[in-house]
């Protein structure tokens, strides 16, 4: 049978590779209020939206910042940053929120920022082939991510985060644990993203549920 800790960590690791929006490597300029581009591309088309956390790369300062406004050629961030002249080899990327409430780990909720919670939910466990010793065991379960966004910033950020996770866990995706067991995103019932649920305190949350299954070899103790 698959080790639960292996499966949980594998799903988490795969989730953290999610890219929600990205420019790719290109020429970008940093202003005191954000970033600009001069090519024919569009930050909007690339998926950037107010309420997302943007991670710069290739600049002198690569501090993660909260996006407050987006046009085709400009991203405005919360607060200020150091201006940097136009340069090539740079990128802007949105990953899952940096603040993460992982299972049974200490977490301090940000005062006014995005954060992530997770659940690993084992479900069924059944022997599928005989004999029992050496037969196939099929296990199923869910991996659930709750993405909290601080608003009001509109719907694009949370839907964007949810879509990023849905793409990362596309039906049939294989996720390999450190021991070589393989979990797969189910194809008969696949990833579901909830509605955006508004909460009382300025946050809204979207829940993405990933159903998985795995087949391993059963071993009956002597």
């Amino acid at each position: 049978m698959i080790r639960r800790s292996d499966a949980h960590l594998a799903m988490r690791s795969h989730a953290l590779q999610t890219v929600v929006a990205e420019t790719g490597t290109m020429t970008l300029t940093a202003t005191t209020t954000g970033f600009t581009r001069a090519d024919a591309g569009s930050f909007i088309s690339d998926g950037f939206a107010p309420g997302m956390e943007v991670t710069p790369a290739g600049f002198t300062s690569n501090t993660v910042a909260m996006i407050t406004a987006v046009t085709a050629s400009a991203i405005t961030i919360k607060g200020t940053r150091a201006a940097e002249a136009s340069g090539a080899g740079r990128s802007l990327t949105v990953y899952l929120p940096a603040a993460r409430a992982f299972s049974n780990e200490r977490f301090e909720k940000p005062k006014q920022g995005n954060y992530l919670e997770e659940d690993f939910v084992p479900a069924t466990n059944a022997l599928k082939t005989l004999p029992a010793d050496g037969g196939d065991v099929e296990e199923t379960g869910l991996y659930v991510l709750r993405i909290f966004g601080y608003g009001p910033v509109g719907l694009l950020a949370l839907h964007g985060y949810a879509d990023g996770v849905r793409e990362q866990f596309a039906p049939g995706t294989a996720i390999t644990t450190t021991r070589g067991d393989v979990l797969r995103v189910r194809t008969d019932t696949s990833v579901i993203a909830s509605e955006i649920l508004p909460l009382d305190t300025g946050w809204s949350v979207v829940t993405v549920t990933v159903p998985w299954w795995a087949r391993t070899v059963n071993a009956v103790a002597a």
Partner: protein
Amino acid sequence: MTWDTDLTHFIVKLDEDAKAVFVNAAAAVQDSIQNGSVITGARGQPVGQYGPGYHEGEVGGTLKASWQMELIDEDHARVYTNEVYAPMNEYGVRPDGLPYRQRSTVGGRHSVALTIAGWQNIVNNEAAKLQGFADSRTGYANEDGG
């Protein structure tokens, strides 16, 4: 008995069995969400457990009892709740944004998602029970067909 008669009987039996599986599966979906199920892995709905120092005098079970099953027609059923806080329990969030902590010693989260994910198991099990291949105590299909 002629071939035609046999075929007619078979078609009628098949139709009856299909309807029976559908109705029983719909009931099993409700049961899975409400009470949990070993077939789907759903935990069922938590039940508020109140007493001295915590909502004293209140009685739990409102959310669990709120889940209903409605047979719409011979092909459709609906399992639903009208409790406004049902999504909160399903997803594991609180309206105030504080961490969700389950006080109930029964039930859990994600019962709807687990039931949806376990739908084919529900159907397979109900079909097996109809054919007499299931243990009536557990609802599990028996390997020996008994």
